[in-house]
């Protein structure tokens, strides 16, 4: 066992998969010699050579189109979009092409592609670097979307993603890259895609969240327990497409109340989908409406007001208090 940051766990997972399967290819802008802007691919080109780990010209549509073509040739590409705010440049190649390859070829071709990308706020990047655009891919049939919140999960989920025979968008929260260390086993292990994790048990309210908001929600729940003596159950979705509604339903049946916490703007996103599914599967167990803790429906702000814009421990506690009073 070793103590690892999330970025180390990711590098370690890529290393394991490159060693295990020669069809795995890692490529993107600066991922080769430079090891990626966050050093996620540090040392991999030296170890596996320029045919397995390589730099691309600077063009996102080209990167994902290249991945599509390589997948048709039987490779398992792991392309990187340097910052997720740049994904719009590649949206056609993801949504119209890679996500539909199995369907439009009647299964003759498929795309075992894992698109890795850093995202997430609170680190004062320039504009269009941090944006939480995961909701767009929730509306994109044919892709799975994974968002780990810990180093341990990052490794197990990334191994599952690369081994999956369909496209997976793997989003790595920039604030979590080096914020803490955790015991991560050296050996291989996988965490199934599509399974949520109950990271804190509680009987009074269910908090459904993912990414960096998992830590924020856990802290809020701890503070709330200390202050009010009430216990919030915290569910880390881990995969936001598909959403593990069974775990959520089970929790809501126990608690009768729920809130959803997300970093992305409010409308029509992951939180909205979670609430819709709670309505479908557990509405008679609810004692209050499900509330959302989110930023407003604006563009992602410039660095100066990021911290005010993003949900905080304080705003989560306020929502917990409110949902108890309804």
């Amino acid at each position, binding site marked *: 066992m070793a103590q690892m940051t999330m970025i180390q766990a990711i590098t370690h997972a890529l290393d394991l998969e490159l060693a295990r399967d020669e069809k795995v*290819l890692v490529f993107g802008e600066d991922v080769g010699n430079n090891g990626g802007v966050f050093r996620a691919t540090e040392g991999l080109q030296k170890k596996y050579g320029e*045919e397995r780990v390589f730099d*691309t*010209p600077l*063009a996102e*549509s*080209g990167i*994902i*189109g*290249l*991945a*599509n*073509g*390589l*997948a*048709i*040739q*039987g*490779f398992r590409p792991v392309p990187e979009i340097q910052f997720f705010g740049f994904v719009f440049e590649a949206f*056609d*190649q993801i949504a*119209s*092409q890679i996500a539909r390859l*199995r*369907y*439009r*070829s*009647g*299964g*003759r*071709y*498929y795309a075992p592609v894992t698109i890795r990308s850093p995202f997430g706020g609170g680190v004062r990047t320039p504009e269009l670097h941090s944006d939480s655009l995961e909701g767009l891919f929730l509306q994109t*049939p*044919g892709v*799975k979307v994974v968002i780990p919140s810990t180093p341990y999960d990052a490794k197990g989920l990334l191994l599952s993603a690369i081994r*999956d*025979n*369909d496209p997976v968008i793997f989003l790595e929260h920039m604030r979590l890259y080096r914020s803490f260390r955790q015991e991560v086993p050296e050996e291989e292990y996988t965490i199934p895609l*599509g399974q949520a994790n109950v990271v804190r048990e509680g009987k009074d309210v269910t908090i459904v969240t993912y990414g960096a908001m998992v830590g924020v929600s856990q802290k809020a729940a701890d503070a709330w327990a200390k202050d009010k003596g009430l216990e919030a159950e915290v569910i880390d979705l881990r995969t936001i497409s*598909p*959403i*593990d*509604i*069974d775990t959520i339903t089970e929790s809501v049946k126990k608690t009768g109340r729920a809130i959803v916490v997300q970093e992305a703007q409010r409308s029509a996103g992951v939180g909205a989908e979670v609430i819709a599914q709670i309505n479908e*599967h557990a509405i008679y167990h609810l004692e209050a409406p499900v509330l959302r803790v989110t930023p407003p429906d604006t563009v992602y702000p410039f660095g100066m007001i990021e911290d005010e814009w993003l949900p905080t421990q304080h705003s989560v506690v306020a929502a917990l208090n409110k949902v108890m009073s309804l």
Partner: protein
Amino acid sequence: MSKTVSEHTVPYVQVLDENGNVTDNELLPNLTDDQLRELMKRMVFTRILDQRAIKLTRQGRLGFYAPVSGQEASMIGSEFATEKEDFVVPGYRDLPQSLYHGYPLYKLFLYSRGHQEGGRVPEDVNVIMPQIIIGAQIVQTAGIALGFKLKGEKHVTITYTGDGGTSQGDFYEGMNFAGAYQAPAVFFVQNNQYAISVPREKQTAAETLAQKAIAAGIPGVQVDGMDILGVYAATKQAVDRARAGEGPTMIEAVTFRYGPHTMSGDDPTRYRTKETEATWEKRDPLVRFRSYLQAKGLWTDEEEQQFIEEAKDTINDALKQADAVEKMTIEGLIDAMFEEPTATLKRQRAEITGEGAN
């Protein structure tokens, strides 16, 4: 102050003139009499297929269809320069190249009708379903070609788009990626003069489309797209270069489509004149090549008539085969999204079939 960084020319390739006379003996491809006759047979079949497909579309027996008459030399001549193991990555108009690369005709009809089976090409056929998004196939071609290179296989990937396609960002990205990796790719542009209704002059200020290759650092060649031997010669050279590890080439074939952009309501009389059409019809690829073959004693009108009858039978048989394929279903669609349906999709499938829904 200015600095000359490089000077470029765009070669223009033509082997047969409008009357079927050889204009460039050096470029005359080394093809057997049988191969020459095969080229003509394929062009005749393509013309008949086009006429029949247009009628079938009007009758509602086909769905989406983009006419090809006028472009036979570009389509047939370029595909003929490839080998079976090479990859053909078509745009939506490029059904003849796919057909002659092994894509079964009845499946092309199913593609037109919007049936999933239309995309399921046989395992040993290196073709993918025609692309709808203009330019998307160009970047994918860089990946397929790089795949051949990484696998150490000496095969080539050829992709097709039109004059409008060269305006897309993906067009440059694909050529640039293939150039950067020296991937074995051929980017074949059929400049048929109009992107739906927009003429080439309004598409770009560039004098030729072939010169767009220069910015990506790869050779660009212009060819008379109504001359099948010229198209074959230019493509063969590009394919040979790619196979020898010398990198990608872009080819602009100057051609014309006689019909509308697609059968879905486009009216060419709104954007081109009878005079323009008559000028291009004088350059007809079938007339030109027929003259050439007849002068060599390789082709007769009687034979052609016989091939036309055979073509009609082949098309009818393929239609029957397409008719016999069961309609696609919503369950089949759901099952095609992933290798294994997700829990969410399983629920949605059950709602539709009424099996154990919750």
